[in-house]
């Protein structure tokens, strides 16, 4: 397995793990850091040391670091806390359409409470310009929230340029620095950012821990969002998880040493991957290459639908968008904000490299991705029209490659498309096509009728693995059928044969539609 999904989460560095373990298994490591006895003090000291380590990477003071359960909580605390403290009603907030869900969803929530939010659209390179932000300010603007580095494209926003300008205007500035920490130098002692969110698990630390930087001078004031006990200067209550905090401290200390070298190592590997995949015609890079962190490469492959692409890459851990939104499998809202259409947005892959990524892994990944893209394009009715078919050796995938858990009959047909292709135009040949590129689903079936029935059937499909499997199943089912006792396979039969669940029932309906269209045509042919 090649892991190129470090922007979703990083492996725990062994040194970080070693720093954490004593606080899980030592006889005197388990005290509650809030307790007033020897064990409590020992845990508290460890927490405070970690606070210094986290602050050091950010150029902050230790007492400006508030530990949270992660960056989602930190973003929630920053936005809700700042607005609640200042009074929500009518307050104006400026943010962008490409923020992480935890910022966007929080802004939507704040709108329900009476706040007004401007969502800025990035340029085609994925950048939110400083001028654009300044132009969006209004006299009642209370807060600007902007991510430093976008999690999908890796594009760096000009927060360094913005911070002094916003300070001069007296507008509070929150920066989601989850993807920036450990990848870019952050000097909060020189940069007038008021609030800044970071996460440990994007930085080789543990999951379940993050922090919000809250500036002391001038003081950024927040209302707490989790009450009880008054931990973390009253801004965030709850027992401090010593081992996780120690892990975050260790990870940030390592990052302070390693971040330059990590970037220097990643850039040529990333560029090598891009050069290899650039050879595929019509692959596009998302995000201005001059503004992207060295670890990230986001590409769209026209004609290769994202879900099928991932399914053909069982040995490659990559993301087709933010991990937080892929549960819903909508095309990436970030890429759509960059002006990509639904089709290109849903045919994208995000490669995010890490500290341990090797040259061999990059080369293997490039080959696997190229094969998968060519294979899907060869199956696609769109691609055929545009460029002519590309012959690919469609090696059958193994049952154990079905890592996303498609139904076995779906996987068998998707992984071995013996009936893919088109038939030449000739008397007795029919062809029908349903779906559209915008719907990210197309199915075409060609038939050739002979004396006794359907002599040959072929299909082409663009869409998820289930759509492709429906095409393959239909072509196999139709070929050799006599027309005398022909039963039109309907969606119910298709779903039963391929064990298609409710969430994919639309794929079976496409199958039914394409057969109906063919049946219509063949009956007209016979009547003439």
């Amino acid at each position: 397995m090649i892991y190129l999904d470090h922007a979703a989460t990083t492996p725990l560095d062994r040194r970080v793990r070693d720093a954490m373990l004593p606080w899980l298994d030592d006889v005197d490591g388990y005290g509650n850091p809030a307790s007033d006895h020897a064990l409590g003090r020992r845990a508290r000291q460890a927490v405070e040391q970690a606070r210094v380590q986290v602050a050091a990477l950010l150029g902050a003071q230790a007492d400006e670091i508030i530990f949270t359960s992660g960056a989602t909580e930190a973003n929630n605390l920053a936005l809700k806390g700042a607005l609640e403290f200042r009074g929500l009603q009518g307050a104006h907030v400026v943010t962008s359409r490409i923020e992480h869900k935890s910022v966007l969803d929080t802004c939507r929530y704040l709108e329900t409470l009476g706040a007004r939010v401007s969502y800025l659209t990035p340029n085609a390179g994925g950048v939110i310009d400083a001028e654009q932000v300044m132009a969006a300010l209004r006299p009642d603007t209370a807060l600007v929230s902007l991510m430093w580095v976008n999690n999908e494209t890796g594009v760096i926003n000009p927060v360094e340029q913005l911070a002094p300008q916003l300070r001069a205007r007296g507008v509070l500035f929150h920066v989601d620095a989850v993807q920036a920490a450990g990848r870019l130098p952050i000097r909060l002692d020189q940069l007038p950012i008021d609030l800044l969110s970071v996460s440990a698990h994007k930085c080789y630390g543990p999951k379940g821990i993050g922090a919000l930087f809250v500036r002391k001078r001038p003081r950024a004031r927040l209302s707490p969002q989790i009450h009880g006990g008054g931990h973390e200067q009253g801004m965030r209550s709850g027992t401090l998880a010593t081992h996780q905090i120690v892990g975050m401290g260790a990870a940030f200390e390592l990052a302070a040493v390693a971040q330059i070298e990590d970037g220097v190592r990643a850039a040529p590997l990333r560029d090598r991957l891009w050069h290899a995949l650039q050879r595929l015609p019509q692959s596009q890079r998302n995000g201005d290459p001059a503004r992207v962190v060295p670890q990230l490469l986001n590409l769209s492959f026209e004609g290769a639908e994202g879900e099928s692409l991932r399914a053909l890459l069982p040995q490659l851990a990559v993301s087709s968008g933010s991990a937080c939104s892929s549960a819903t499998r909508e095309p990436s809202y970030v890429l759509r904000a960059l002006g990509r259409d639904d089709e290109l947005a849903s045919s994208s892959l995000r490669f995010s490299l890490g500290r341990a990524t090797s040259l061999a892994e990059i080369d293997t990944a490039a080959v696997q991705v190229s094969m998968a893209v060519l294979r899907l394009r060869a199956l696609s009715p769109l691609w055929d029209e545009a460029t002519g078919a590309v012959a690919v050796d469609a090696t059958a995938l193994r049952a154990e490659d079905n890592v996303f858990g498609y139904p076995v009959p779906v996987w068998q047909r998707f992984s071995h498309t013996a009936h893919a292709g088109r038939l030449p135009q000739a008397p007795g040949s029919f062809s029908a096509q349903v779906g559209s590129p915008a719907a990210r689903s197309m199915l075409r079936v060609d038939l050739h009728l002979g004396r006794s029935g359907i002599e040959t059937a072929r299909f082409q499909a663009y869409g998820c693995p289930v759509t492709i499997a429906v095409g393959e199943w239909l072509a196999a089912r139709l070929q050799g059928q006599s027309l005398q006792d022909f039963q039109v396979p309907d969606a119910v039969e298709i779903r039963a044969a391929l064990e298609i669940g409710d969430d994919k029932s639309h794929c079976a309906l496409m199958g039914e539609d394409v057969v109906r269209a063919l049946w219509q045509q063949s009956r007209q042919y016979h009547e003439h």
Partner: protein
Amino acid sequence: MPVYFDNNATTRVDPQVLEAMLPYLSGPHGNASSLHRFGRMARDAVEAARLKVAALVGAQAAEVLWTSGGTESNNLALKGCTAGLKPTRVLYGATEHPAVMEAAESLGDSGWQVEAVAVDQRGVLDWPAFERQLAQGPLRLVSLMRANNETGVIQDIARAAPLVHAAGALLHVDAVQAAGKIPVDFVELGADLMSLSSHKLYGPKGIGALIVGGDVDLAPLHHGGAQERGRRGGTENVAAIVGFGRAAELAVQELGARAAQVQTLRDRLEAGLRAWPRVRIFADGVERIANTVQFGLDGYDGEALLMQLDRKGFAVSSGSACASGKGEPSHVLLGMGIARDIAKGAVRVSFGQDNTAEEVDQFLEVLRTFAAGAA
């Protein structure tokens, strides 16, 4: 090597729990929301743990919502069931954990009428007063703890539930101290929401759960991401969740044996304390969890005693760790009508699985020396 008598503040991580966690601290490192193989492995582990935590309290797996701990669970329960509604009233027990009290009181800012329910001098809910409060107009939520973190007093939740429901309100139960110490059944108790914490039952810190009954409409506390079916955003803390699951499983298996063991220690300690004049055991004579004793010494400087015990290597507490360092006497004891000076010097001993009879005897010996020195 200190003697640790502060298991209500936090417990050590059981070695079997740590063993279950280790693969997720070193091996597969997926984000549980990622769709690729590593992500799926993490997802499977999270769901297996959900079943185990559900089994601990007789709930359905789908009713288990992960949080960062008991404090977040309590905040989510109180704020999540009130957000966006026309404000009415919220009640909470006078001896609740600060996380419940302060979360409840914060609702006052958005127009909710927030009232404490009195307890008697034994720490037991004042039932006649409670029933009067229930009848005083529209009510959204009542929050009561199953077992008190300081005195160990067990509240009769099953008696409260039908009264709360008859008043048209939801019942939230803070079961952080009860789970793993006494049987807790979400359905039998009649709870609509229930808070749990991992690090009070030999699991890791930084993870907890809120049990949310199927028909409860809950607004999120953390927005962003589709995790926990949109009710709690944030990347899942996989290792800690797995640890909590294992800890819950062990708690179910060992519940009886654990309770019996700490009961022996508590009986030994209480017998020793009773032999000594001017010792007052709080909530004496009412049903308490078996590991907890809170006591005061009439006529002695309790704070000096706590310092002395710390110096001698005994980890005990005056009350809630979440309220320590503030120099304020316990609100629990004040709520029970205990005088401030006595409450201020209260000592809470909370036993765990590692404690021994010898440690209890050593503790009593130090107390005797202190008393002799102070007399």
